[in-house]
């Protein structure tokens, strides 16, 4: 199905199942521990051995010698794979660094070997007996130092300019010119990267934890240099990804190599302490923002320049994304520059671009409001735009940022905020309020599905879509139930297998809208087939209460399916609507934060958000997505910081004891409101993504609340107490 014109009324608009608060259909499996994750698939790989990956002890250099003799003699060892015996490997185009180092080492903890043994304990012990001599090379690890001379990054819209920014900024009576920094961050999803690989002749099956099944097949094919048809990837349950599992990582590649060498299935999980340096991370940014406004608060000049680093051939953190679209202003400039760093591979993490970009832009807006003596909610409303400001002939498909701000302010009690910082006190706590817009682009991706009905009237959906904790199972079941006119418990959803039709996968908050639109398309095909079989008019036939009806005739769906069942299949493909219209999701974050007047400790006390993301398919799982994003925003604002040791070139605090993410006590009550909007330009579902929106701007709202509480403006994330103390008054 081609989606090329705005959606009209369709069965989804009936909202019998879609849009209803629906607990996850996979919830009972999850809470009883019976949803099998990759590392638990003992059922599919009997007699498997265990692989433990040895990571590089240096960040850059060459492997001078690998001595595996001692490890090979260790009890239980079956095989050891290094670059010397792995055979010829390719490098997937999606990978910046290779999954197996050798002889060159590109980053710290890059895999240099895998040791396979009968038990996990034997493999872990033997892995420590692999001795590697390195010839260290000098690397570049400091973004601030590498920033000078960094070129514009490759890719679209890495440099944009409209009007005459320099002149307008110079002429503006009120300006902000500030530089913000955000640190490297780690995904720290609950489930570590894990894979069981098993070969059957020249065919390999990977039970793994991955967000994008078709990409995984492609990347394994490009790495192992075998045809895609010889690779099966299965990943029905994923314990979080946040972008860290968009592409296969060393667990999958090394498990496949190990299983080939050991001639039996091999199970591999990355240890928590390996993940931060072995896999990918969100790179640090340095962002300079300049805003110029007239005295009424209208922005006349807006510039956002951002720098990040990656290994040679890598990509940038596109932190200027939102600045191209969020606010009006005639004179504009954005630049995204990329330095070369020899840290582990920089890559996508939840809301790549907007997450760190909004951390800077939305604090700059707070600073501009203060200089104007204007309420920061009003400043944002005043500079709203209904068209792409770089391309005014391109309207937004559907944009209600102003409603989000107004409704959020009212619900939060924003009117009680003091414009002057440091005026509210609650015992030892200095209390402040902060606001930030939420903004994240809406992307749509081609997505396919197969839907069948059997003779019992059970509807089965199969698609290689993944559920990374987001609720895909449930919204897909809701979509099929709505389309086929059956209750939710008559739908079975099968996900995450490369034998199923190729879907959008989970990433960039495109999965929800795109994958359900694919299921919609498949259901349209199935409905047509059923109508044809019954001799009904396909356009007129209705599907409700387990029956197909046309005019006076009505047939049970089960009966229509017959003994052989009946199935349909289709793929939704998206035309130019995302080019002709700017499609994005919006919101407004409101935060109340406390700053301990003595110690500078920051605690978020209240948090609320109003969001505009088109049709909300399932308010229960959408809310969970958004509060997860808001919580990650608290982490980004206050604690997450993968610290680089510039002498050795690695992330030092590479475990969960020292890389802090929020704990329960850091996350207060969160109020979430969705506007009842529909966006007919996005898909037949009229939905958009919510998986990343809740994070975008949340950290800035925290930072603005901290400033309002204590008057200390920190432009260097995270906002730790040592930075607060520098500006905090004596007590």
């Amino acid at each position, binding site marked *: 199905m081609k989606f090329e014109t705005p959606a009209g009324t369709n069965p989804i608009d009936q909202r019998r199942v879609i849009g209803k608060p629906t607990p996850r259909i996979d919830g009972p499996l999850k809470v009883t521990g019976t949803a099998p994750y990759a590392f638990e698939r003992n059922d599919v790989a009997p007699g498997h051995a265990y692989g433990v990956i040895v990571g590089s*002890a*240096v960040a850059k250099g060459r492997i001078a010698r690998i001595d595996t003799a001692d490890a090979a003699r260790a*009890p239980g060892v079956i095989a050891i794979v290094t670059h010397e015996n792995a055979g010829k490997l390719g490098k997937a185009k999606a990978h910046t660094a290779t999954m197996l180092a050798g002889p060159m080492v590109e980053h710290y903890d890059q895999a240099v070997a895998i040791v396979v043994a009968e038990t996990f*304990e034997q493999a*872990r*012990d033997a892995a*420590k007996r692999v001795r590697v001599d390195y010839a260290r090379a000098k690397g570049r690890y400091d973004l601030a130092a590498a920033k000078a001379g960094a070129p514009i990054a490759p890719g679209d819209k890495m440099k944009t300019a409209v009007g005459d920014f320099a002149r307008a900024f110079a002429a503006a009576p009120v300006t902000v010119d500030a530089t913000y920094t955000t640190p490297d961050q780690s995904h720290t999803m609950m489930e570590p990267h894990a894979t069981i690989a098993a070969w059957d002749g020249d065919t390999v099956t990977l039970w793994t934890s991955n967000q994008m099944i078709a990409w995984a097949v492609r990347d394994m094919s490009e790495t192992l240099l075998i045809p895609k048809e010889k690779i099966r990837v299965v990943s029905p349950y994923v314990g979080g990804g946040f972008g860290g599992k968009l592409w296969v990582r060393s667990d999958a590649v090394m498990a496949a190599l190990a299983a080939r060498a050991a001639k039996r299935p091999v199970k591999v999980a990355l240890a928590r*302490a390996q993940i931060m340096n072995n896999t990918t991370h969100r790179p640090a940014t340095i962002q300079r923002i300049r805003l110029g406004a007239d005295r009424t608060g209208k922005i006349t000049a807006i510039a956002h320049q951002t720098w990040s680093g990656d290994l040679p051939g890598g990509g940038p953190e596109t932190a200027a994304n939102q600045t191209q679209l969020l606010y009006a202003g005639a004179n504009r400039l954005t630049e995204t520059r990329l330095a070369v760093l020899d840290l582990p591979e920089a890559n996508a993490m939840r809301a790549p671009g907007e997450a760190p970009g909004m951390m800077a832009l939305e604090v700059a807006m707070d600073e501009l409001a203060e200089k104007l003596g204007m309420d920061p909610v009003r400043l944002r409303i005043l500079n709203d735009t209904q068209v792409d400001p770089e391309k005014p002939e391109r309207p937004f498909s559907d944009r209600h940022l102003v409603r989000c701000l107004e409704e959020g302010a009212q619900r939060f009690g924003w009117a009680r905020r003091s414009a002057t910082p440091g005026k509210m006190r609650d015992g*030892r706590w200095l209390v402040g309020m902060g606001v930030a817009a939420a903004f994240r682009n809406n992307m749509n991706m081609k997505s396919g599905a197969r839907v069948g009905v059997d003779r019992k009237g059970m509807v089965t959906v199969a698609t290689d879509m993944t559920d990374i904790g987001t609720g895909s199972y449930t919204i897909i079941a809701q979509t099929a139930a709505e389309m086929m006119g059956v209750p939710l418990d008559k739908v079975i959803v099968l996900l995450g297998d490369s034998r199923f039709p190729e879907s959008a996968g989970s990433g960039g908050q495109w999965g929800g809208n795109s994958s359900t639109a694919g299921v919609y398309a498949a259901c349209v095909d199935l409905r047509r087939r059923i109508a044809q079989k019954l001799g009904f008019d396909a356009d007129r036939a209705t599907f409700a209460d387990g029956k197909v009806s046309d005019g006076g005739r009505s047939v049970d769906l089960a009966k229509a399916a017959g003994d052989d069942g009946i199935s349909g299949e289709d793929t939704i493909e998206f035309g130019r609507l995302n080019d002709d219209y700017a499609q994005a999701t919006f919101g407004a974050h409101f935060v109340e934060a406390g700053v*301990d007047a*003595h*110690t*500078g*400790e920051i*605690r978020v006390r209240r948090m609320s958000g109003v969001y505009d993301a088109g049709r909300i398919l399932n308010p229960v799982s959408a809310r969970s997505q958004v509060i997860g994003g808001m919580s990650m925003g608290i982490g980004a604002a*206050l*604690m997450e910081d993968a*610290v680089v*040791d510039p*002498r*050795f070139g690695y992330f*030092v*605090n*590479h*475990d969960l*004891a*020292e890389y*802090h993410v*929020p*704990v*329960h*006590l*850091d996350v207060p009550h969160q109020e979430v409101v969705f506007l009842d909007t529909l966006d007919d330009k996005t898909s037949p579902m009229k939905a958009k993504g919510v998986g990343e929106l809740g994070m975008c701007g949340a950290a800035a709202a925290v930072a603005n609340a901290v400033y309002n509480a204590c008057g200390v403006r920190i432009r260097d994330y995270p906002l*730790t*107490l*040592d930075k607060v*103390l*520098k500006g905090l008054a004596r*007590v």
Partner: protein
Amino acid sequence: MKPFTYERAASPAAAAAAVARTPGAKFVAGGTNLLDLMKLQIETPRHLVDVNRLGLDTIEPTAEGGIRIGALVRNTALAADARVRRDYGVLSRALVSGASGQLRNKATTAGNLLQRTRCPYFYDTNQPCNKRQPGSGCAAIGGFNRNLAILGTSKDCIATHPSDMAVAMRALDATVETVMPNGQTRRIAIADFHRLPGSTPWVETALVAGEMITAVTLPAPVGGTHIYRKVRDRSSYAFATISVAAVLRPTNGTARFAFGGLAHKPWRVEAAETRVDGGAKAIAAAALAGAQTTDQNGFKIPLVERTLASVLAEGAAA
């Protein structure tokens, strides 16, 4: 984890003798720190002597009016004990500010005293660390040391001791009771129990090879207002950036202040306590005399003073 042998000891003296007798042996109790370190091969004992079934898990009154806390009393039980909560509130509060409920259920009194530093370079076996590998150097000096020590450091080590419990015990003048491999017992004042790193940072306590902690005793209660204030980068499940254990207005004597997160041991300067009338500034100045900071951890000096001010204000209001 390296392969190791295992035995279950029959008595404290037998356990001490077994560890002294067996090369590369260590005691294991709750295992909450040791097993993690063994998995990373930071600790590589060849033999473990399990002391979990030796009793030593009760809290008894002493003839002097204090309490004797068995070495194997779990942190959860100690924090919840009615006498501890009533008479030694600072200890109970320190305990519940540490780790997580699950860890406190397993962690023992003796094990808590013996837990090892959380310096990130100690935790990465690819990096130099004099504590882990004597003579290899200290990567923390000149590296990431925002949360490391400012007092009692040496050119070989700037690690901190991560315990909360030990800080409160220092303020309470606890005594560590031990049994030696030859069966003799001795008592070590908590002030003398942990050592400064000096040129031998791998030697962390006054214990000799095979010597086993059997109990910690606390003197008779001193009354006063007990406060434990832990300052950290997130609300829970984080080691102290700094902490203050305070006993204010005790029945006899002056106020007491011990500090965590500043040194290789709980830090207490008794002379500073005579300056309580001078307020936080005077106490901090005396307690932190000789502090040596890096470009990252200098904030601990004003933070100690400010936290003391907060503690004094809280105490005045109590």
